[in-house]
């Protein structure tokens, strides 16, 4: 009798211990952090820890993933039904078909109020009320200038409203006077080039979602190529690399090898940490083109995927992260611009940022109301990446005399149309 009772108890014990891990694992989610953005695992970890404390039994695993891996490997994982529960992505519309509609799992009204326009970018051009994720930070393209070099050269820094040509002229004078290698540099990115293109009148995409290759784009490409040919911009970035590969040379600005570096607001934290007081620098207002004084908006989002086994946990975590006090904490650590209505209104403190960085943030934020409608439309276009890839590939060919500008424009049109055709084939 004793043995039988003992046997039953032992069996129950084995059963409980064998099922307990399964029960615990069932409420575990994996998040791919954007290591090269402000939403890195380091910055999200305190929020994840607070969520776990507030929700015993739920575990959030943060995995640091490089930008290139998110860009190239994640879509293939998602296409095969695999991948994390949540990931930080930049291609908001392009991956929309894989998103989980979070509306049943989050405070839908709150999300609608806080991120009305950015939620639209997550829908990939489809008219519905799905909540695909939590928009992270708003990023703004923009230029940084080495003010110390301007002072050494005795050249006044162009004022707000200066055109791209005026900036090129001024930085050329500074580079010549100070012996700096290059006047201007721009990240090898179709997103960065789009800022220049739209200010020159390029539409890039119309209201119906059709790609547009127009005189504005031609003028922008011609100007861009001219700057490379006359040495204003180095060939190392756009000229030396092929395909759609993303490259940046922040190190050139850090080492004062360039007077003006055109990147974006996500680099502010890096500027603060690595440049700091090495030399005087500042963020400039959007240079003007013939059409407008605009730069591209951007920003990633933490999106949830439909294949997740834990939609409630995913929704609970993103809802928790989306609360102003938590989101503010991440943005503050990352030194990034908020995209949510409440935080835009009340502001985000940046206690670790220098005065120069805070001025830079203010300048970036001031560009948002000036942004051309074409910039917002392009950012929300589902096939934005197809156009950006085509721009980087073909402009590099023009720089290396493989194509004329007119031939490049034809090829850009063909490349984008082929990509859209392949995506739409059903």
């Amino acid at each position, binding site marked *: 009798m004793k043995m039988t009772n003992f046997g039953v108890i032992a069996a129950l014990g084995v059963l409980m211990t064998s099922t307990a891990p399964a029960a615990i694992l069932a409420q575990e989610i994996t998040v791919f952090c954007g290591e090269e953005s402000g939403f890195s695992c380091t910055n999200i970890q305190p929020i994840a820890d607070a969520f776990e404390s507030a929700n015993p039994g739920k575990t959030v695993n943060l995995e640091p993933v490089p930008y290139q891996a998110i860009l190239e490997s994640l879509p293939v994982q998602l296409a095969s039904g695999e991948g994390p529960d949540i990931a930080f992505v930049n291609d908001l519309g392009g991956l929309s078909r894989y998103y989980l509609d979070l509306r049943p799992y989050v405070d839908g009204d709150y999300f609608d109020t806080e991120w009305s326009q950015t939620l639209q970018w997550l829908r990939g051009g489809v008219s519905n009320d799905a909540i695909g994720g939590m928009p992270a930070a708003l990023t703004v393209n923009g230029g940084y200038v080495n003010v110390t070099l301007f002072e050494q050269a005795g050249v006044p820094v162009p004022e707000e409203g200066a055109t791209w040509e005026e900036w090129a002229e001024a930085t050329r004078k500074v580079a010549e006077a100070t012996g700096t290698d290059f006047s201007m540099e721009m990240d090898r990115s179709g997103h960065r080039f789009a800022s220049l293109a739209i200010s020159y009148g390029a539409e890039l995409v119309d209201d119906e979602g059709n790609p547009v290759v127009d005189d504005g784009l031609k003028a922008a490409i011609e100007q861009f190529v001219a700057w490379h040919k006359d040495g204003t911009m180095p060939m190392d970035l756009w000229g*030396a690399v*092929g395909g759609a590969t993303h490259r940046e040379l922040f190190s050139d600005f850090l080492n004062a090898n360039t007077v003006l570096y055109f990147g974006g607001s996500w680099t502010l934290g890096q500027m603060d940490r690595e440049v700091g007081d090495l030399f005087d620098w500042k963020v400039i207002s959007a240079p003007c083109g013939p059409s407008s004084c605009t730069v591209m908006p951007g920003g990633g989002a933490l999106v949830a995927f439909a294949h997740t086994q834990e939609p409630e946990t995913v929704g609970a975590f993103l809802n928790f992260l989306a609360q102003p006090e938590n989101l503010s904490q991440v943005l503050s650590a990352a030194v990034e611009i908020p995209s949510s209505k409440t935080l835009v209104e009340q502001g985000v403190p940046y206690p670790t940022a220098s005065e120069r960085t805070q001025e830079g943030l203010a300048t970036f934020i001031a560009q948002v109301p000036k942004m051309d409608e074409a910039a917002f439309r392009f950012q929300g276009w589902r096939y934005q990446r197809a156009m950006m890839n085509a721009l980087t590939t073909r402009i590099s060919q023009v720089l290396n005399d493989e194509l004329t500008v007119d031939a490049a424009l034809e090829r850009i049109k063909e490349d984008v149309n082929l990509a859209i055709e392949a995506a739409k*084939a059903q």
Partner: protein
Amino acid sequence: MTSSDRLSSAFGAMASLPARAVEPFMAGLQRIIGIKRMPWFFLVPNLVAVVLFCLLPVFINIFFSVTGSDRLYPSERPFIGGYNYQTLLDCSNYLDPSTCSRDLFWRAVGNSFVFVPLQVVAMVGIALLTAICLNGNIKGRGFFRGVFFFPVMLSPVVVALTWQWILQRTGALNGIFTSMGLESGAWLVDRNWAFFWSIFVTVWAHMGFYTIILLAGLQAIPRDVYEAAKMDSANHWRVFSRITVPLLQPVLLVVFVLAVIRSVQTFDELYVLTGGGPGSATTLIVQYIYETGFAVQPRNFGLAAAASLLLGLVLLVFTLLQMRLSRSSKNG
């Protein structure tokens, strides 16, 4: 029986334990299927693996090449026939990529047609010279053999990054040139220099492998043949051309074909070193396939599959050529 004999006997008994454990099963199986069919029992697991991981992907690739959309699951891909092949092969003049619908594909093909012969000749030539030197009675021979083989063990990404740091505008090479008062070079910006360094880096990374194979071939040549030649006062060139090369021919053939196949498949080093640039100057066919299928958005798996099958056909031709040449050299 000594203690070492007992120890050997004990180890032997332990080592034969697995064989003795399966013996009843194997004996029973042999009774059922017969001794003639027993080898198949050992071959089938490997054959299944080859079919699953080598042949099946080829058929899946063929399926992808005749279907469209950017979906991954076969059931979600509509049949489009030869559209992808038509798109790739649509050219007014195959010698001028700008007249082609998919100009980047033909630029990659053109680059590969130049890269492969130059790289293979350089690779095999330098590997042969190195093997000949290492075959001699030189001091530190073992050390040098290791040194030449070392790059083969490195990851291609590590190789490419290292050389990128050396060759970039502010890299070590320009630093050395500047310190000597020489003009720095645009090694990765100029098309011709970028192409040269692409060949150089890939040869540097892989020649050790072929050197070892050729060294083994050289060491298999009987020494008395060289001694006889020495007695006949044959000079170095005659020894090399009349003895070394003919006797090394079978090994050279294998090395040559392996080098060609490896060269056609070059991707990782160049993708990291130059990204296929400047422009498309160092874009080879595998990079085109990768970018079309995996790097650009939306992904065009069908077009990438069609391009990879065309590449596969080219490699098949080389393999058949190697088999034919190998057969004729065996027949004398």
